[in-house]
């Protein structure tokens, strides 16, 4: 076995140069435009970005579940422990989904099948992947329910009998049922109120550690990132414009957009009276700006910014950024 291969196998997930557009009769939504993501075994990566940045689309591609027929994967690869997802046949995909990779979906209200009991919905993936009997699967499903803090006897109830927070827990239980190697959590707490948010987050974190899972945590909440992630990728208009570990991003952020994200945070300790939201609106994915997609909103924009897309620049072993400020020739850095 050559060295390269050994290296690759340490990565639970590798996304390389992924491009996904939603193509319909009258428009092309450029959702993902060359994303690179790597998650090492056992680590948690935070994927942060505004709404419409292409986070969910990227996540769905890992399960090869980008909505058809509009969603077109135009180029790039997704490797799970070195195996390419896009070249798997349906049977291989079914084996991966729910067992190797599981996803907690963004909207718990619509993610559960209204006509099946929650118990059956959790048991289903256990029955598929663990090859156990129906009763055994249901028994394990009840244990999963208790694990996420819902009494096991409620397994016989239907989703409409559950509150939003409980549905989210069920969605989490479904995702964790087969203790996947990689857990994708797509804004698992946005649908919940603040007190439950903290509980659910704690729960995910505990279970993740218990089962030694890698995790992709999608969020636009930097507080969550600080709490659960090892590394952070900042997404903007379908690209990762900055990536690094927590220290890199929280203490040495380089990209003007990343800086804007932090400036927009309410800072309770400093009691700063005024928030500084990033000016302008997020770009229209059907009509992205030329060059650096952030340039219409950027305080540091230069002439070159509207002309060419900045290349990925590695600032240190762990930290990279896509911005013309970090050209080798440029002096005026952030």
């Amino acid at each position, binding site marked *: 076995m050559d060295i390269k291969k050994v290296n690759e196998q340490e990565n639970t997930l590798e996304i390389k140069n992924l491009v996904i557009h939603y193509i319909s009769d009258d428009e092309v939504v450029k959702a993902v435009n060359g994303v690179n993501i790597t998650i090492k075994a056992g680590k948690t990566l935070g994927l942060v970005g505004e709404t419409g940045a292409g986070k969910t689309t990227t996540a769905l591609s890992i399960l090869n579940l980008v*909505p058809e027929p509009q969603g077109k994967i135009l180029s790039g690869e997704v490797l799970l422990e070195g195996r390419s997802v896009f070249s798997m046949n349906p049977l291989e995909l079914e084996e991966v989904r729910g067992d190797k990779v*599981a996803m907690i979906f963004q909207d718990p209200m619509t993610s559960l099948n209204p*006509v099946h009991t929650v118990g059956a919905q959790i048991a289903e993936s256990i029955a*598929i992947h663990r090859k156990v009997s129906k009763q055994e699967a249901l028994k394990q499903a009840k244990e999963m329910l208790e694990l996420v803090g819902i009494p096991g006897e409620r397994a016989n109830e239907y989703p*409409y009998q559950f509150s939003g927070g409980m549905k989210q827990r069920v969605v989490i239980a479904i995702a964790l049922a087969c203790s996947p190697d990689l857990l994708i959590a797509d804004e698992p707490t946005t649908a919940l109120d603040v007190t439950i948010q903290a509980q659910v987050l704690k729960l995910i974190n505990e279970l993740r550690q218990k089962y030694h899972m890698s995790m992709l945590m999608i969020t636009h909440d930097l507080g969550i990132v600080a709490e659960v992630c090892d590394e952070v990728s900042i997404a903007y208009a379908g690209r990762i414009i900055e990536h690094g570990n927590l220290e890199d991003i929280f203490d040495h952020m380089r990209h003007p957009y990343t800086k804007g994200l932090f400036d927009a945070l309410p800072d309770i300790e400093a009691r700063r009276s005024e928030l500084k939201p990033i000016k302008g609106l997020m770009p229209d994915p059907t009509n992205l700006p030329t060059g650096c997609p952030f340039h219409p909103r950027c305080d540091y924009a230069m002439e070159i910014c509207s002309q060419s897309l900045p290349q990925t620049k590695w600032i240190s072993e762990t930290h990279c950024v896509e911005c013309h400020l970090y050209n080798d020739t440029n002096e005026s850095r952030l």
Partner: protein
Amino acid sequence: MFKFVVKRLFAMIPIILAVTFVVFTIMYFTPGDPTNVILGNEWSETASAQLKAELGLDQSFIMQFFHYVKNLVQGNFGMSYITRAPVGDQLLARFPNTLIVVAGAMVFCVGVGVPIGIYSGVKPYSLFSNVTMVAGLLGVSLPIFWLGLLLILLFSVQLGWLPSSGLDSFASLILPSLALGSNYMANVMRTTRSSMLEVIRQDYIRTAKAKGVNERNVVLKHALQNAMMPTITVIGMNIGALLGGVVLTETVFSIPGTGRLLVESINKRDTPTVLGCLVIMAVCVAISNLVVDIIYAYIDPRIKAQYGGGKG
């Protein structure tokens, strides 16, 4: 659930009474003297008056209706003006034929319409889907009469494969079922397709796929049950229309059923028989609506809960 069914059965009574009243009123106020029909050439003032007294036709409208209902409750549909035999016996002899034809049409429209609808909803961009949708459009616009005659011409006259009239074998059921069912089959197919299209892009379908459920079970276990609601509604609503269509079908294919009996007795002003046919059909529609509601409850736990079925 049991309580719900019983409650609904009782709720049917006023509906059927109301239908009976409407039909009775229409028949009562239709101009013409029934004794003319019954006595024919032997008609005379005295004979007519005597007959009216005998049949209770000299009483007030309300009393006549009251008597009719009273008899009806005892299972007595009255005497036919024409044959002077009990209408109930006629219905008993004829109604099974109608039921068979309607059931045949139903089996055809569900058995063919639902699977095609599912398939073309799951694969909406396939050639198959497009072809069946065009066929479906044709299906809803073909009149039963015309289609029935066309089928007879092709399969009975030209090819000689299937009988063109009567109802004495399975083969003789095929053409009437096709003629009667094709409109509704097309309806069922289109409804199933569009609700399948809708359901298949719901989030919970994605959840199922993300669990590793294979495509077949995604459709059969997750999508179908959710997609069936509109289809069942359409089927339920069409039962009334099917019973209407059966009048034409039985005429075209010379099937001795209630539909044809109805037409004949209207022509002959045989009021008790007309009433009997319509009451039976109304009961039929009411029962099938109840069945549809029960099926709803089995498909959707939320509806079951509303019916007071409790948990599970």
